[in-house]
């Protein structure tokens, strides 16, 4: 279990409990948090689950795969802390994680 705070582009915050083993993307979908589209359902094929990871957690969210890295390279408004949320696995270590959403996923 980890408490994760999703911050919409307009600043609206949603703090929810997400089960270990789920992805950060699934945590949003299962809790009806808006702002993550996840068109491909977590296949790392669409880049519509883009989030910005709070710098305090950057070391804990795991390494980006080459696939994720190159998908992100072509997404809009990418920052150094950009991630595809379907590729971040939730663990107890991520308790307190804050992720922010871009203005649009398309």
């Amino acid at each position: 279990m980890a408490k994760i705070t999703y911050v919409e582009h307009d600043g609206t915050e949603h703090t929810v409990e997400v089960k270990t083993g789920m992805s950060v993307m699934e945590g949003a979908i299962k809790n009806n948090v808006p702002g993550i589209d996840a068109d491909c359902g977590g296949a790392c094929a669409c880049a519509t689950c883009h989030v910005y990871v709070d710098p305090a957690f950057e070391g804990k969210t795991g390494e980006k795969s080459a696939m994720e890295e190159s998908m992100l390279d072509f997404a809009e408004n990418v920052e150094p802390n950009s991630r595809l949320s379907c590729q971040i696995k939730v663990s107890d270590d991520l308790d307190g994680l804050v992720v922010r959403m871009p203005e649009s996923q398309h």
Partner: protein
Amino acid sequence: MRGSGLANPGAPDLNARVVIIGAGHAGGSAAAFLRQYGHTGPIILIGDEPLVPYQRPPLSKAWLKGEADADSLALKPADWYADNNCRLMLGVSATKIERAARRVVLSTGETLDYDILVLATGARARTLPLPGADLKGVMALRTAADAEQLKAALGPGKHLAVVGGGYVGLEAAASARALGAEAVVLEREPRVLARVACQQLSDFFTRYHTGHGVVFELSAGVEGFEGRDGQVTGVRLADGRVLPCDAALVGVGAIPNDELAQAAGLDCVNGVVVDLEARTADPAIFAIGDVTHRPLPLYDRMFRLESVPNALEQAKQVACAIVGRPAPPPEVPWFWSDQYDLKLQIAGMPFDADTILVRGDPATAKFAVFHLKGDLVQAVEAVNSPPEFMMGKILIGGRKPVSRERLADSSISMKEVAA
């Protein structure tokens, strides 16, 4: 209660009573987009499967291999529907559309009035009218129930025969291997993926699967299924051989569930004919997803697509039309497939292409096949190559000419090629 739509059928109306037939990827997404865009009227979602709208792609991939649980398949959590004033009627099918009365008849005998009707009935697996096709263990893969049946038949030492070398069949073969089962793929054409991919890609996938122990029988005529005590035991070929199996997956394409629309007098050509708002010729009736024959403005033709991105695009179109938002800009059709450690991403359609150009080396399992019409990219099939897919999609949508020489040179990055 109906909204104000009766006077002016199909006009934007936030209070319209929307009935959606088919609670699949398109229908479920349309309900979600309607609420997201501020629709306040009632939404009724009728689905003949017993499940809340769910995703099918994992049924042949992550879910089949046991890497994703059933919970993860749902599009939205079950309580979303009640919380958002969407009435879900599951295990119920619509049997008739009465257009004049603007009413749908259900299998329960009940009738439902609508201001707006959305047909999202999808497609069903094509069956083979062969001897033995009704044996236990001869199956299709379209629904979660199908997938349960297939999964139960797989495991170490089991033999799966896949009839039809399309994406679903190849994905199932790869998942069967991951579960320790033997897999043989029987294809009528001389190559797999014959209807949906180019020769280069077919050859690559055949080699890759062979390397993972899948056996191929190409140009194979399947004559029927053999069985014992009602259970399939083998597939009989035209050359007289019988290939033993514990389960036979028939993956020979899908046909649109457009019979309701046909019976209601709506124009159907391999699917329900719709425009770029997803509207049929009846202003109060829309159709979305696998069941539609839709315009592809980039290619100046009509086509029936079977993909999640298509279902989502049309779900947005219908939601926009109902609430009175401008129609979203047309998207580039795209698709993905996962097999072993391969990620295939396809953008565009290879219509009217005059040249096929391979970028990268298939032997490295990282390459892309571009389909060009002059210097315009019509489609790209990218294996483990997101830059080619992502930039290819942008080039296709923007109708931006490229230099073939530079595109063929993988030492020049896709960003530079497109610059």
